[in-house]
């Protein structure tokens, strides 16, 4: 290339301009289009309405690109802003949502949830087994520079950690079981810049032994071009960085995984002190699994997953962001959208299985979630977009949550778990040997409507099917971003956020003592 591409683009941009005639014609048209003075019927903007922007991005997201990674947050029908929704922001859709929560349940049945509130403060709240949620504590006050989402992980004994990307730096804070949250630590190496590609958060894992690993996508400062408030990687696709903190120790210096990457790896705990990081390798079109040393984060090996054949696009793949889960006993499952189908791989110590398609053909599937039970069975949930016919003969696009149980000798049993005629989104799954659960947000206008609620379906005790969907939350305004977790004893906790009748954003939860049991009434976590 002859010269710096950015300089050439800038020069070319300055070299083109509209004609005077076109400018004058447009100027006159704009003046003529100015509305006559009238009283605005719109309410003053509220900060809460920033929510809808992210909701729009999440619901609109997922356009398939050949051999490119697409987001985890699902494809589907277009988002329709609802002015009466307290998160709705009239007109503009540009902005960042907050208040996504992540929850985990420890071996005693206690629950821990972390989130970023609307003031830009990372908070965490605890609930003892069968008790009430305690007052949220502040993990880090970030203000306007706060990210929209954080990554959160906890192990069975209650060690927990959060990580986030802020201003090109990867930050993390840890909380050993029974102690307070430590101060945030910058994990980014000098000369490197974290790029929030894909899931917008780092990958994070707290192992059962208490080690904490954080992964992110990075590029050298020299390859990063800043533009406006965003950051982009120019000239290289970036690579994966890993930072590790041994139990009770300090963070080690971040180290790279050799090779290119285009999305932040997802982490899960494998066998024998190993951690698996799964990610997409960009232009090569390969999905990679790196085997990491849990104590140091050093990559021991990197292998490629074989993608299952699909009828669509036989010569090229559209690939979603990989997700991965473990069962605490070294068994791993990862799930990826491949050409509109959901594929699942299982690793049980003898290596990775061949990819298996669990979603049916004819439904544009995406946004997978995966969980592994003690016995090696895999619960996968995803959203499927179909076209439904109305009574008047017209059609509309609908988004439905599907789920399947596979592996461990079980047949694939893909089933629709959310109701027809609705827009379901944001699936979340949890699975143990005693059963499992799928949660999602449901509404006639997706997560932006005024008749939205969180619903859940249990995996039946035999593991062969799904029970009827049950509501967890009351019906009201969205959006709702549910997350669900279960411990080995089957104690299950779901959390979500929503808009009250008074147009305040709140966080709520529901719990069940065991899979299949009755859910509690919604409980308020915050504010």
């Amino acid at each position, binding site marked *: 290339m002859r010269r710096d591409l950015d300089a050439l683009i800038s020069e070319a941009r300055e070299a*083109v301009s509209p004609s005077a005639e076109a400018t004058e014609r447009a100027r006159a048209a704009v003046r003529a289009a100015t*509305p006559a003075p009238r009283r605005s019927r719109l309410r003053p903007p509220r900060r809460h309405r920033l929510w809808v922007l992210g909701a729009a991005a999440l619901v609109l997201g997922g356009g398939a690109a050949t051999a490119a990674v*697409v987001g985890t947050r699902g494809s589907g029908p277009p988002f329709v802003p609802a002015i009466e929704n307290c998160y709705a922001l009239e007109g503009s859709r540009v902005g960042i949502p907050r208040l996504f929560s992540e929850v985990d349940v420890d071996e005693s049945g206690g629950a821990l949830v972390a989130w970023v509130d609307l003031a830009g403060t990372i908070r965490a709240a605890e609930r003892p087994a069968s008790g009430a949620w305690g007052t949220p504590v502040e993990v880090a006050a970030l203000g306007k520079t706060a990210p929209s989402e954080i990554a959160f992980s906890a192990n069975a004994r209650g060690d927990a950690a959060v990580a986030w990307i802020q201003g090109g730096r990867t930050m993390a804070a840890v909380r050993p079981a029974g102690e307070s949250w430590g101060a945030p630590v910058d994990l980014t190496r000098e000369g490197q810049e974290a790029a929030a590609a894909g899931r917008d958060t780092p990958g994070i894992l707290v192992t059962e032994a208490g080690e904490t690993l954080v992964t992110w996508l990075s590029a050298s400062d020299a390859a990063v071009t800043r533009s406006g408030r965003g950051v982009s990687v120019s000239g290289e696709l970036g690579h994966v960085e890993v930072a590790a903190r041994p139990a009770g120790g300090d963070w080690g210096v971040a180290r790279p995984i050799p090779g290119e990457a285009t999305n932040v790896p997802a982490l899960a705990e494998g066998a024998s002190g190993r951690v698996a990081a799964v990610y997409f390798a960009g232009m090569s079109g390969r999905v990679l699994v790196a085997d990491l040393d849990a104590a140091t984060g050093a990559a021991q090996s990197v292998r490629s997953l074989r993608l299952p054949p699909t009828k669509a696009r036989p010569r090229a793949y559209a690939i979603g962001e990989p997700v991965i889960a473990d069962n605490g006993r070294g068994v791993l499952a990862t799930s990826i959208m491949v050409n509109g189908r959901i594929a699942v791989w299982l690793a049980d110590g003898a290596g990775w299985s061949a990819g298996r398609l669990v979603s049916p053909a004819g439904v544009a599937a995406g946004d997978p979630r995966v969980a592994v039970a003690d016995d090696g069975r895999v619960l996968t949930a995803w959203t499927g977009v179909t076209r439904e016919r109305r009574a008047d003969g017209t059609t509309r696009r609908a988004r439905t949550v599907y789920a399947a149980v596979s592996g461990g000798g079980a047949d694939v049993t893909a089933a629709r778990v959310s109701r027809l005629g609705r827009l379901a989104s944001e699936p979340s799954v949890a699975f143990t040997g005693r059963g499992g659960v799928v949660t999602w947000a449901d509404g006639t206008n997706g997560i932006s409507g005024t008749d939205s609620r969180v619903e859940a379906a249990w995996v039946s005790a035999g593991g062969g099917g799904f029970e009827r969907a049950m509501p967890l939350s009351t019906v009201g305004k969205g959006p709702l971003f549910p997350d669900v977790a279960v411990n080995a004893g089957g104690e299950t906790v779901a959390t979500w956020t929503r808009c009250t009748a008074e147009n305040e954003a709140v966080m709520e939860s529901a719990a069940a003592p065991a899979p299949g049991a009755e859910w509690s009434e919604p409980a308020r976590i915050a504010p």
Partner: protein
Amino acid sequence: MDDTEDRNLILRARAGSADASGALFERHWLGAWRTAYALTGNRALADDVAQDAFERVIRGLGQFDPARPFGPWLHRIVLNRARDVLKRERRQTPVAEVLDGGSVNGDAGAEARALLAAIAALPKEQREVLVLHRWAGHSLAEVAEIVGSPLGTVHSRLARGMAELTRRLQDDDDA
């Protein structure tokens, strides 16, 4: 671009001030037109797209939250109008017309024309992301909102677009 000044102008324009609408036009017209030109690759289409987008924006100011940045909103409408127009025209971006761009002059013009031709030859999704980010100066988060795709998708499309653009310009050099 000063968002506060935009906000004041939007509030006044919503109240019916043609002067405020005119001031908004003067502040954003050139950027909107240049974006439309890079997206369509055609001066006449860029004139239509940018003017139509501006008219829609002014008529729709009542639906806009002035606390939010104006530029991304305007450029989203520019993008949608460009998509509509190109679809209506039932053709790909007319590279030949880009090469005849009448306002690209002087020594800089040859390279600029080569660049625009290379941009015009990119796949639509890559071209949109590259134009909005590198040409119009929007952040990747803003581009993700404008094109309605996840940030990861935008990142990937940009990386591919930049790689492809570099390759095409190198091909030009080698030719």
